[in-house]
């Protein structure tokens, strides 16, 4: 089996799963309990928080555990909207965001907020200048993903941050779900980023885990009210086993990170070079993009058909993004890139992780060659 759908989800790493099981079996107290079982769970929770904070270069007090990337995005956006609505009701985002962002924005629009959706160029990249011209006196949030989940385009987060330095009261949210461990992301105290979303299962942790970075001093309203966990900002009994497992997964992700990125880049570049040779292939990812995503279309063949054809060969890829791939609609990122619908429906995405090898890429290309010849005749 070749698993090339790592932007949808990753395999849980063995020792990460072991941590999850050990904690579930032996340290299953509620961190809020006063007795020693609670103390142990709380200690592990705080150690996990500390480890995660130190890996991504922020303070412990700036990490809030969530259940998913989707929750993080919803919280950052709606939490900002609720907290700051008396100062303004204008939000800025892009046309290529993950549905967790897009749908949160849509819901706010129904409640009377206004949203500006920034366009992208043909590589799927927004411009910082557009951000600047979209800012209004009543703008309260700018939300931009660091790496696009469909084509892997890397957004100019630093430049947008520079623009936003002149507007210190606007919250700057970055969906970093696809970026962590793949592209540099500066969250140090000098960075302009206020909020950043992360998801555990995208880096070999378990589903149902994630965290939101909230810069010290920034306030967003809670969405989950209750027992006052996470300093009263995100209630709900903490998923200690999942969180500890995620802390481990993150440590492993950052272990020899540069070599891993370089290796994925090499495979990605190799695949781009090879795919480019086919006349009916149109590539949407570039070598400037994130090191783990190759998105391309085979003209005239629907993406879904390609996915199933590869599946027969035990190769698992995806149409553009797993979250929208069950719907018939074509990719919104590609639409935003002005790719004609006819071509966009043929798009598929290969997404890598650090355990993928060049041999797997070669195997994939051999299968592709076969399918290509086959489909060529059908059409």
């Amino acid at each position, binding site marked *: 089996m070749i698993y090339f759908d790592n932007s949808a989800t990753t395999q849980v790493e063995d020792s990460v799963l072991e941590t999850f099981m050990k904690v579930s079996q032996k340290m299953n107290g509620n961190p809020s309990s006063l007795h020693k079982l609670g103390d142990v769970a709380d200690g592990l929770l*705080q*150690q996990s928080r500390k*480890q995660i904070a130190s890996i991504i270069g922020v303070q412990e007090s700036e990490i809030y555990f969530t259940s998913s990337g989707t929750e993080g995005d919803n919280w950052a956006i709606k939490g900002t909207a609720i907290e700051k609505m008396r100062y303004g009701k204008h939000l800025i985002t892009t046309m290529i965001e993950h549905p967790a962002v897009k749908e949160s924005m849509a819901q706010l629009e129904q409640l009377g907020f206004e949203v500006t959706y920034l366009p992208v160029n043909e590589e799927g990249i927004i411009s910082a200048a557009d951000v600047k011209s979209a800012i209004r006196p009543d703008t309260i949030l700018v939300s931009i993903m660091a790496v696009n989940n469909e084509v892997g385009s890397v957004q100019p987060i630093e430049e947008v941050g520079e623009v936003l330095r002149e507007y210190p009261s606007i919250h700057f949210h970055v969906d970093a779900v696809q970026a962590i461990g793949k592209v540099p992301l500066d969250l140090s105290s000098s960075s302009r980023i206020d909020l950043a979303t992360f998801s555990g299962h995208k880096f070999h942790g378990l589903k149902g885990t994630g965290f939101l970075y909230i810069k010290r001093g920034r306030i967003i309203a809670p969405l989950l009210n209750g027992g006052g966990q996470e300093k009263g900002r995100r209630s709900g009994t903490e998923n200690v086993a999942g969180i*500890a497992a995620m802390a481990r997964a993150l440590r492993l992700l950052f272990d020899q990170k540069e070599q891993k990125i370089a290796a994925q880049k090499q495979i990605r570049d190799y695949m781009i070079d090879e795919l480019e040779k086919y006349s009916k292939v149109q590539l949407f990812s570039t070598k400037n993009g994130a090191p783990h995503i190759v998105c391309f279309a085979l003209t005239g063949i629907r993406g879904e058909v390609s996915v199933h054809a590869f599946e027969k060969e035990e190769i698992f890829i995806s149409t553009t993004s797993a979250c929208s791939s069950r719907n018939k609609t074509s990719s919104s990122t590609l639409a935003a890139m002005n790719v004609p619908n006819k071509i966009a429906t043929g798009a598929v995405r290969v997404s890598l992780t650090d355990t993928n090898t060049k041999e797997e890429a070669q195997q994939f290309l051999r299968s592709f060659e076969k399918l290509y010849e086959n489909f060529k005749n059908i059409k």
Partner: protein
Amino acid sequence: MQYNEVMVRYGELSIKGKNKKAFISRLAQNVKAALYDFPEVKVHGERDRMHLELKNADSDEVLKRLEPIFGIQNYSPVMKLDRDMEQVKKVAIEMVREQYAPGKTFKIATRRADHEFPLDTNDINLMLGDEIIDHIEGIQVQMKKPDITLRVEVRLNGIFLSSQTIQGAGGLPVGTSGRGMLMLSGGIDSPVAGYLAMKRGVEVEAVHFHSPPYTSPRALQKAKDLTSKIAAFSGRLQFIEVPFTEIQEEIKKNVPEGYLMTVTRRFMMRITDRIREQRRGLAIFNGESLGQVASQTMHSMIAINDVTNTPVLRPVVSMDKNEIIDIAKKIDTFELSIQPFEDCCTIFAPPAPKTKPDLQKTRDFEARLDVEGLIERAMAGLVMSTISVGDTLEEQQHEAFSDLL
């Protein structure tokens, strides 16, 4: 850079005549205690200074551990090399390069203890100076007040290079002034009082009162964590837990509210004094300061101090709260101290304790209790432990969870 020796210069103690030997050996002990997990380090306490042979111990870590030890004026990391000038050149360049930043100046200061060495002081100064100018671009020589002074000592057993002098903590080696009992609650003041006592050479032992189930295991752990923080200044500390539940319950039952606090503190003072006797201590230290709340008036001190003739020393007595907090932050106890766990001083705390307790009334109320019996039972239940630097809950958890994370 990995150094293989450290030279330690003594502080105030170099002026003490007769006691000097005792001071030096005590300092050596304290240094060894602070380096307890580096058994390979050899400590040689000589008349004028102390040498640490590091063997393969991490020199950065050793230097860091020396920083808080009282009785050290300053210290320098040293490279001891064979008498081979090629090797000396290499290390000299590396050492200066580590400290060099554009615009900085340097000089070489050579001393020869071995006058038979073929090169004389000037030869060595010139040779190493040339070498450094050749290898570090932009560096300038300056004889008066250079930024970097590379000291070279030629001795029979080798050539010693050093270029940094690190300020020590000053004060007197812990233990040279005798032993004292510190009444350690979980608050901000008492760890600071302990630190100040240690600074003047007192070997401090921490006495902590706890009253389960009114006080939680976390409150006890917090006191231990605080002890571990101040252990940084002496290597390790004796920690003595006093079971205090029965006494507090008895007082609560029999003493009017206004006098609860005063009588409670008299018991603490008595028990601390008993422990002092047992441990052959000379004085009692606590974190009392003069203020407006009930436990901090001079009237209150009279009523509490009434139970003993032992000197009760209050190092923070005249400090403002902010001054105490500044020190607490410096010794890294502040964040721990403000954790919200109830200790013995806050449970049963009456809404309105007497700010001016009457001594005679205090004695009368206390007479209702079986003072001797209560104290004896508490003394029988003492728990002693030794706490070292790094014995904090945080560290234990870090250790315990490292496999998982």
